[in-house]
């Protein structure tokens, strides 16, 4: 096959969209999808009451118990750190802003995703390249720590759509949200879990560093300013997520933007970042500022959604 043909194949594969048979709820914000199976019980899997009971049972089995449940990770999340995130380690990379259909058949990953799906949305996890794939999951040379052969940079991922197959496989549509780095491995087997921090690009850090310097320089130490910078950058990332990773279609290989959210997202960006900065400040003044900024951001979002509802 010539290079022209090969490259054309790549472009054409991108240009043509893949098809999913997953049906979607009417709300574009909803990420839970109708799950149907071609065969099943006496009602061919269409008995909604039975399906709901099964779903409840499945969740009660898979969800973490109160004893082991971690406290709400608000403080860490506000600086872009995701504690004990489940992770896929396969022999390919997934980039931010890209989407991929996964055929999950390996038992450990079926378990991982089922456990994740039993928790409330958003269903976030990390994906990190593992040369050699699953066979190297237990290989000490590929342990998730500096100095091994394991890459530590990866992608924060979100599950967009789910279909449970009759043979217990999962078909998932996932999308990459942001670049990140494994700061600590919290579990190696049967699948990896890790502390994962999102890594904003230098340009984003510089823009937010100016914001931090202007607002807080006089009051904060260098260490606190670093923390504030992480918070501002993480807040920017999260704030644009709904616009940049809209869930309006299941058919594209790149994430699509939510047109209606551009203006309100831009308008409320500053308030969202200020709220995050204020909540990261440890002082009482910070708490008061956080409350005020959060109220302003919430008001902005409320106006935005009320406005959308009226149109």
């Amino acid at each position, binding site marked *: 096959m010539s290079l022209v043909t090969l*490259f054309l194949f*790549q472009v054409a594969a*991108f240009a043509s969209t893949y098809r999913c048979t997953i049906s979607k709820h009417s709300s574009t914000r909803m990420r839970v999808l109708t799950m149907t199976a071609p065969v099943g019980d006496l009602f061919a899997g269409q008995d909604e009451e039975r399906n709901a009971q099964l779903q409840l049972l499945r969740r009660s089995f898979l969800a973490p118990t109160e004893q082991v449940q971690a406290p709400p990770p608000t403080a860490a999340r506000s600086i872009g750190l995701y504690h004990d995130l489940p992770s896929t380690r396969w022999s390919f990379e997934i980039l931010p802003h890209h989407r991929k259909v996964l055929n999950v058949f390996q038992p450990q990953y079926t378990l991982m995703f089922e456990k994740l799906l039993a928790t409330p949305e958003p269903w976030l996890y990390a994906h990190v390249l593992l040369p050699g794939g699953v066979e190297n999951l237990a290989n000490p040379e590929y342990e998730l720590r500096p100095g091994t052969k394991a890459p530590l940079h990866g*992608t924060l991922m979100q599950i967009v759509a789910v279909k449970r197959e009759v043979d217990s496989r999962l078909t998932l549509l996932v999308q990459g949200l942001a670049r990140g780095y494994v700061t600590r491995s919290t579990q190696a087997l049967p699948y990896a879990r890790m502390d994962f*921090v999102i890594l904003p690009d230098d*340009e*984003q850090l510089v*823009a937010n560093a100016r914001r931090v310097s202007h607002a807080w320089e006089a009051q904060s130490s260098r260490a606190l300013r670093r923390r504030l910078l992480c918070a501002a950058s993480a807040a920017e990332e999260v704030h644009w997520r709904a616009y*940049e990773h809209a869930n309006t279609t299941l058919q594209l290989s790149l994430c699509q933007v939510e047109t209606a959210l551009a203006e309100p997202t831009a308008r409320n960006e500053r308030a969202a970042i200020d709220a995050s900065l204020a909540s990261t400040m440890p002082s009482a003044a910070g708490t008061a500022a956080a409350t005020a900024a959060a109220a302003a951001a919430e008001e902005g979002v409320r106006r935005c959604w009320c406005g959308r509802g009226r149109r």
Partner: protein
Amino acid sequence: MLDALERALDTAADPAEPVEVEAEWALSVLEVQVWLELDHLLRTLARLRGAGNQAPVPTQLLGLLPPPPASGWPTDFALSGMSTQLRERFEGARSEGEGAAFGSAFDFVPVDLAHYPSRRRAQRLSWAVWAVIGGEGVRLQPLLEVQSTSDRLRLALRRMRDVRQSLEA
């Protein structure tokens, strides 16, 4: 990570460092270069396929096309015309009131040039362009390890130039 944070704080605190406007201008120049190179590559592909053949248009990606540079797009820049056509079609459907979720019917959904920050648009392009120029055997891990949007755009430029030169050889 710590280095990147320290560097950013130093840059922000140093009045001698280029201001944000300058940094964004440099990024937008790189962004335009990527589009020009992509256009060149697609035209090369179309030419090599022979008369009457066109290279596939990456419609999903075209939604990220920025406004023309100050000097305008070159006259042979084909992606601009395609983007304009798609944008008109999209705006037409939008004005017919298909609702907030009308984007689901289109591969092409343009970013809002008035409200979406140009820095984030360039950052998104630096990832999205690899859907077109990546492919079998292309290592994507280095993209996750470079620390800036500019460097990732430079990697995209290098990749496209390498492919085009191989095609033309």
